[in-house]
Structures are given as C-alpha cells and as structure tokens.
C-alpha cells in the first residue's frame, strides 16, 4: 500500500501524460466535464463531472468503418484502433457503470469497438468523499469506495491520497517515485472517511422492484409521472449506463463510397421507435418514460441479475422538469 502527497497529483498527471492520453475532470466555467487533458487543463476532483465517462467508450458519433466499391469489389476499412489512455478521477459509481457496460457489450455478440477502448484504458479512480445531491449509489450494494473494478484507487486521507492498486496496471503506476509507503493508520483514516461518506448518501430500498414492475405496466402512474417530461435526452445522454444507438451510413452521391457511423440515440425521443409507415409503438411520453425505468429496473436485472442504474444522480440533478428517478422508485414500492 502506498500514498501520494496531494501536492504531487499534478506531477503524477504530467508523468503519466508521457505514456498515455489522459482523460480527466476539468473545470470549464462553473461546470466540470470529463475531457481529454490539454496542455492548459488542470484536473479538478471536487465534483463528479456533468458528462459520464461512457462517451470515451461509446462516443456520441463513432465511425465503425469506411466502405468503398471499386469495379465489383467492396473494400471495408474498420476503424478499430484506440490509443493507450488513463481515465483519471473516475468515481466509483462510474466504474460500476463500466462494469455493467462490459456485460452488455460482451457475451454472444461482442462489441469490438467498445472492447478495444476498454482494454486500452487504465482506470484511476478516486473514492467519493463528497457525494452530491441526488446521489444514491449505496442503494445498489456499491458505495463511495471500491474493492475492485478499477486499476488503482486513490482516497483522500488529509494531506495525502492513499493508493490501492487492484491490477498490474495499477501497481505499475504506484511504482513511481512520487509515491511513499503508507501505514496502517492511513488505511484506518480511509475506512473512517468512507464510512462517513456512506452515511451522507440516500439509500433506497430496491427489493422486489423488478417483480413489482412486472404488474405495473398499464398502471396510470406512468401518465402522472410523465406529464412534466419534455422528451429531451438529458437523462439518457448524461446517464453512464444508457447505451442505445442508431446506425447511419453517410456516403458520396453516385458512388458507393462512405462511412458507417454509430450515434447516440435515446428512448426519450419519439423518433427512436417511429416506424417507416409512421406508426409509433411508444407514441407518447408515458410509454417512453416507462421504457427508461423498465430498462434499468426490470429488463437489465432480468437478463444480467444487476440493476441498470448505478445511482450517480446525474438524471436527477439535470432534469429540467424535475423528474426524480429515486422518487419514481419509491412510488413503485
């Protein structure tokens, strides 16, 4: 076990930058976003970024391959390669979202684009000692700290960050001379601080939620809850686990020469389910809001025995109409 003085975090980032691309929370005006670290950017660890880290694994628009037809031959050029990088400052809730996306993009129909980016990314996580309004991660059996899932976990213990590696990649990072040996007392301080943080987080009772939802499909609850929804994509686009997409081909006129692009899409848009003939199986806000809740709290649990939500609170904090997923869950209860 090692530790690093807080004042050396900057040096650590600069050191890592030599071998990796760094993605980290950066302050822009009054807001904080995960972004690729530029030369003038400083890592900001005091609040969880507005955007979730998913955009670095499932980009908003991702060219899957380029295609070309010459004579009678098709040529496909996949766009798979990714660079070695470090996601620095990811909080435990977002680490859990990646573990869930691993399940979803793996299995029988593996997503090679996701896998490539995931394998090339080292996760340097920070325990979350300052949970924000709307956070409810402990409801999912997780919490402000990690036992695994990241490569390295750093926890604020005062003047230092305690450093606990969970993988070889993590061990490699703490070999740097910037780290010092930690003591048992440091570990104790960490445990106490995590416990304190846990107490600050709202905990929901999720027992039997999937079973309850099974009988609520036609309930009038969904009419009531969805009235204020404005059908925008904030909840789903900021969500670290929402992964739905649309695939489009863009080409040049009169030739077979173009790109296939995967773009974010959302069950909140009417166009997501609108069929070519004009029919829409999820025609109103009621069906769409219900889908969001069912996907996270029934369909994903049915399939993966895990909830499709990690309690990061982004949808709660940013919904312009004040829709609160925690309140919806307690109403289902």
């Amino acid at each position, binding site marked *: 076990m090692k530790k690093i003085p807080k004042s050396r975090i900057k040096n650590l980032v600069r050191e890592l930058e030599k071998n990796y691309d760094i993605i980290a929370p950066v302050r*822009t*005006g*009054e*807001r904080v*976003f995960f972004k690729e670290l530029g030369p003038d950017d400083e890592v900001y660890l005091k609040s969880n970024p*507005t*955007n979730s880290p998913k955009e670095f694994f499932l980009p*908003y*628009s991702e060219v899957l391959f380029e295609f070309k037809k010459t004579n009678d031959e098709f040529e496909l050029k996949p766009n798979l390669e990714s660079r070695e990088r470090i996601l620095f400052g990811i909080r435990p809730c977002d680490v859990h979202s990646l573990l869930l996306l691993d399940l979803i993009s793996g299995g029988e129909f593996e997503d090679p684009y996701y896998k490539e980016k995931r394998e090339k990314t080292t996760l340097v996580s920070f325990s979350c000692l300052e949970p924000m*309004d*709307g956070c409810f991660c402990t409801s999912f059996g997780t919490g402000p700290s990690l036992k695994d899932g990241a490569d390295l976990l750093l926890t604020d213990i005062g003047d230092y960050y305690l450093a606990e590696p969970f993988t070889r990649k993590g061990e490699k990072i703490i070999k740097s001379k910037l780290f010092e040996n930690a003591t048992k007392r440091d570990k104790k301080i960490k445990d106490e601080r995590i416990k304190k943080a846990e107490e600050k987080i709202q905990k929901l009772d999720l027992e039997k939620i999937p079973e309850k939802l099974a009988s609520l499909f036609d309930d009038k609850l969904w009419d009531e809850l969805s*009235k*204020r929804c*404005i*059908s*925008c*994509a*904030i909840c789903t*686009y*900021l969500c670290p686990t929402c992964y739905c997409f*649309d695939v*489009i081909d*863009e080409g040049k006129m009169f030739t077979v020469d173009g790109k296939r*692009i995967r*773009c*974010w899409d959302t069950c909140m*848009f009417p*166009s997501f389910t609108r069929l070519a003939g004009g029919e829409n199986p999820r025609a109103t806000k009621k069906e769409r809001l219900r889908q969001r809740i069912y996907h996270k709290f029934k369909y994903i649990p049915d399939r993966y025995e895990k909830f499709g939500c990690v309690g990061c609170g982004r949808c*709660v904090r*940013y919904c*312009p*109409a*004040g*829709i*609160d997923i*925690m*309140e919806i869950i*307690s109403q289902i209860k």
Partner: protein
Amino acid sequence: MEKTQKEIQKLAKRLLKEKKVDLVIGYEKSESGKTRPFFATKLEDTDRLVWDKSCSNNLAVYLLENKEKVAIVAKGCDSRSILELIKTNQIKRDDVFIIGVPCNGMESNGKLLENCRVCRYRNPVICDVLLGEKVEEIPEDNYEDVKEIESLPLEKRLGFWKNEFQRCIKCFACRNVCPMCYCDDCILEKKDPQWVSKPRKKEEMFLFHLVRAFHTAGSCVDCGSCERACPVGIPLRLLYRKVAKDVKELFDYEAGVDLKEKPPLTKFDLENDEKL
C-alpha cells in the same frame, strides 16, 4: 408569496370544481424539495400547488400538448410566451384561463436568475385573473451583454461560439423546453431533406444553434429556460438576445408584448422601409 400561493390553490380548486377547466398547470415541490411543473386535475391536487421564488420553469411549453380547458399559472415571461402562442395560432385565447402572477424575479441558490435581472415585464401582459400585488417594472434593458460580444472582432466571436457549441450533446433540451418551438417536424431532425446530420459534427453545430436562433427570432421572450436546461452550460440567452436586439432595431418589434401587433417577419415592407 404565501398569500398568493393560497389564492392560486383556491382559484385552481374553484376552476376545477366548476368544471371551467380540466387541468391547472402550476408548480409543486418534489420529495427532495425541487420546484417543478405540476398538473392538477383533481380537487385534492390543488393543495400541492406552490408559489415561491423558485418557480422558474416557463409553463407555457405545456400548453402545446394541453390545449383545451386548461388553466395556467403565468409569470410575466410565461404570459409573454402565451401571448406569442395565441398570436401564432398555436392556442386559442378562449381555451386557456391565465392565472397571472406578478413576479419579482426568480432565484436559484439565493441568486436572482440572469434573465430576471433584465426582465422588464414582471407583471403578466395578458391574464384572466391577476393574483398578488403588481410589482414595479425596471427600466430599459440596455443589452450590455450583447454589446460586449458585438464589440469583439469577428475572429474572436467565432472562436467564442465555436468553443461553446463544441460542448453541445444534441440533447434537444433547449428546443423541447421552449414554448416557441412548436413545429411538428423540426428542421434539426428532418431526414428528407436533411439539413443537420445525425452524427455530431463540429462544423454543423453552428448550423444547429443558429437555426434555432433564427427560428425563435421575434418570438423569444428571454424566459431563460433553454439556458437553465442546457446540461453543458452553453450561453444560449446571449445568442437569442443578440437576435432579439436586432429584431428590435430592425423591425421595432418586441416579442410577447402586444397581441394586436403582427409578427415582424409577416409585416415587414422591404421596399418602403428605410432601415431594411
């Protein structure tokens, strides 16, 4: 404000009881204390209606899907949007009962909202009933924020907006929260012909945002809903206020003020107008 809240509740109850309306659109508190739009349809719902300094949502947007036998709580800005919706034939005056409420400016975390700082229509411009005392209006909006960016050279302005727009995630919250974005088929999502492509392209983000700025020209009332909704903090009001300032200078028109005055883009006379 407490007294006004009681009056709103009482009036809502009466309107529902006498079947004058089927729905009252107002505000309530969520379990966690966040103020949000509320839709009262039953008599007992009316007790949940609140009125305080956090009622910032522009409720007029909900009239687009609740057009008949509806009552709505309207601050100055909401009332101006309603006026524009009537003017553009999106709703009928007689189908909406407007509960006007004067407003001294809404707040967030104890701070007056940016649009409220320059609002000159704190009293509703159109209503069926006015609840609460009329408040004093503040003098002329001198568009200082707009003048500041106008004074920058083209390259700098371009750089500023490029930097702001590149954060856009195309969540459509700015459009969907806007009462004046009522098109059934929005140009920003149209596939045939396609003006803006589905993938997020840096060069198209200007088009995306400028289309909205032009389309709300002459009807944006600076309620600030879009800017507050934007999850990535794009200063949308600055963009729309620039357009509003131009509309004022070119057409001598201000959105949401006079029901009889024709929208600027339907009445201009290119041949006889000196400024044009």
